[in-house]
């Protein structure tokens, strides 16, 4: 059982394991930097309104589309509002929506996927046909449909993005479970008479964690972009509150005359997604039991 993971170890041992993982994680400098960047974003998300140099919603009709200068470092937008302040304050909305929706989607999707993969049969059919139906609709359209039915608003956008996150987790976790299911240690566990639920959550689930982490980090990026696409199509969380996706989408109309309106929110989205991906890679390498 050497290749199983830390979750099924006694608590005392887990502490030392945690230390080991920390040490291992800190060896990966890119992941650490990514983590630091994410921490900075989290800091913005919490203290954004306090550190913003200007009121993010204060218009200045005499300074529309202002290019970056000493006063407005990132320029001003179509209402003369300070772009830097809006980006800082908007961090909360942007990260909040994507994190919340991926968490919800991942939890449901993973649960369903592992169940389907392990038990097969009727459960598998129901889960997989269900996700087939969800999956058969183009993501964005599904999100639009959900927002159209339940109405606009930040919680509804979270639900919409979460719903189309579910099938991807379900499918990937199912296939991961399938490939683990036929592996030696699971067969061994089964042969010594372990209960299904124990095999499922103690032996199979932990070894699918790495697949989940890779998918999870990627889905956060996807979720940020999905929220931006929803804004692009006019179904964003809130137009009057600062939000990276909304800023990028409205900025596209001014690409020629005020590229900074597209450039800065785009870059921030880019860095955020990059950071999550690098962190995910770092975690994967750290947690991957086979590479110890």
């Amino acid at each position, binding site marked *: 059982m050497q290749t199983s993971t830390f979750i099924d170890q006694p608590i005392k041992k887990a502490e030392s394991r945690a230390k080991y993982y920390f040490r291992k994680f800190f060896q990966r*400098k*890119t992941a650490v*930097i990514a983590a630091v960047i994410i921490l900075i974003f989290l800091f913005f998300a919490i203290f954004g309104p306090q550190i913003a140099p200007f009121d993010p*919603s204060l*218009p200045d*009709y005499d300074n*529309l589309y202002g290019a970056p200068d000493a006063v407005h470092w990132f320029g001003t937008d*179509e*209402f003369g509002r300070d772009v830097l302040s809006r980006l800082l304050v908007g961090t909360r909305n942007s990260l909040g929506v994507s994190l919340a929706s991926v968490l919800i989607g991942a939890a449901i999707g993973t649960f369903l996927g592992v169940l389907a993969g392990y038990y097969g049969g009727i459960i598998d059919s129901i889960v997989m046909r269900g996700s087939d139906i969800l999956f058969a609709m183009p993501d964005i359209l599904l999100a639009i449909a959900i927002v*159209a039915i339940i109405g*606009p608003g930040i919680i509804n956008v979270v639900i919409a993005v979460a719903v189309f996150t579910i099938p991807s987790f379900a499918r990937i976790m199912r296939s991961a479970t399938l490939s683990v299911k036929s592996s030696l240690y699971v067969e061994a566990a089964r042969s010594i008479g372990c209960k299904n639920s124990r095999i499922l959550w103690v032996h199979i689930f932990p070894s699918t964690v790495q697949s989940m982490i890779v998918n999870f980090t990627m889905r956060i990026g996807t979720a940020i972009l999905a929220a931006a696409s929803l804004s692009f199509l*006019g*179904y964003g969380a*809130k*137009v*009057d509150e600062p939000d990276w996706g909304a800023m990028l*989408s*409205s900025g*596209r*109309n*001014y*690409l*020629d*005359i005020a*590229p900074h309106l597209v*450039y800065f929110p785009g*870059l921030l989205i*880019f*860095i955020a997604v*990059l950071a999550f991906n690098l962190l995910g890679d770092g975690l994967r390498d750290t947690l991957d039991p086979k590479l110890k």
Partner: protein
Amino acid sequence: MYKRKILFVFIFLTVFAFAAQGLLTVSAQSDNAAKAPDQDLVIAFNNDIRALDPHNVSDTLTISATRTMYESLVKFNEKQEIVPLLAESYEISDDGMTYTFHLRSGVLFHDGTEFNSDAVKANIDRCKDESLRQNRIVKQIANAEYPDPYTVILTLAKPNNTFLNKMTMFDFIAPATIAAGEEKILREPCGTGPYTFKDRVEGDHVTVVPFEKYWDGAPQVASLTFKAVPEDGARVAMLQTGEADYIYPMPTTQIKVVEGKKDILIDAKTSNIMRYVTLNTELEQLKDKRVRQAINYAVDKDAYIKTVFNGYASKVYSCYPETIQYYAPQPPYDFNLEKAKALMKEAGAENGFKLTIWGDNITSEEKGMQFIQQQLKQIGIDVDVMPMEANVVAEKIQAERDKAEVNMWYVNWSASSFDADGAIRAILHGESIPPGQYNSAYYNNEEVNKLMDEALAITDPKILQEKYARIQEIVWDDAPWIFLASDQVISGYKSYCSGIQLYPDGAIDCSKAKLN
């Protein structure tokens, strides 16, 4: 090693970002001599063309396309006057009941048959079908007589001063095509217009070519293509690369980009579009006229035009723009916060209140709603901006009266036939209160209703001017809306294009188009 990697990330990011920005801001002036590369005129629009049935069109773009192939008895000229087209002349009886049209002779349909009173009859008969949009015109006709091939006498059921305006929208299809059914009309349009149908790729383009036997001289271009290009940026890019010779609408934000270029010209005109925000007069907070006037004073119209339209809109001094008949300017609600606050206080609303504003979920509308939100904040009104898909807004507006949730609706109206009745009836008449029509201010002024109904039966322009002026005066003072502005219709085109007429409703007349 790791340091190198990190360095690499930042080099990559920086190079990528600056390369992109650099390329964008370096304005590569095109030195194209202002000479047309070919004789194929391409006009790029923001929407797809719908069904090519001239008796069933409702959107300006499709009308622009069908108008290249079809004509009406009378039309608007560029000064918004009604002038003869397929009719050489017309008379209206004094009681406003009988319209006599003398048809032009020698006009041919694309299939070679002659345009005459039989053709008029075939078209009027077709539009007796209630599911066709132009039934609204034919429905008004009580009796049609065709005494000779070049005379048509139409008698109305009751007098209606907008009848002639509506006749500018009534196009004529060749009788043989009508007889062959709708399928034929859609696939092989056949009218008397300057162009004949060539091909259509649904969702992409419609192409027409000059009709050699056109009565007023065939157009000089080799072909004319209407292309659907919904994305603003892409449309402007096509104009710059020359893939399109003429684009409409030209987005106001991008005018700066092409302004300095010598091969691109901009045509901006006052439109028939009225921009306003309906204020639900049945709502507790908005019941008081003084509050509604305060709101009008609190909105800086100059800043609105500058911010939302980049300067390309006109101020309005009435409930409809000056391109519409019988326009009567009123004393403006100039931006005045002191006055606004005083009025709010008078009405006992100095502490402000909360309102929602609805509107379509497209960028320009969202921008306008946010502007209103910013402005009303100044007098203590807290506005929640709620953009929704157009269909959803429409459905919510059409709620039963006792279940109405609308506070403010950011919207616009354009009277397609430029008549005063069309500019106000559906949005200000007491009978137009939803569900049904669009009077979402729930504005119901007995005098206004009465004046509107009386005016319909009057043909004397002088009395009409008085009646409509009085309506505008009352509505302006009652302030059931925030009166914002009137859009300008703007097109962008290559300097080698000429003779293309842009009308205030955004329709484009290509009959005299030339590529030099």
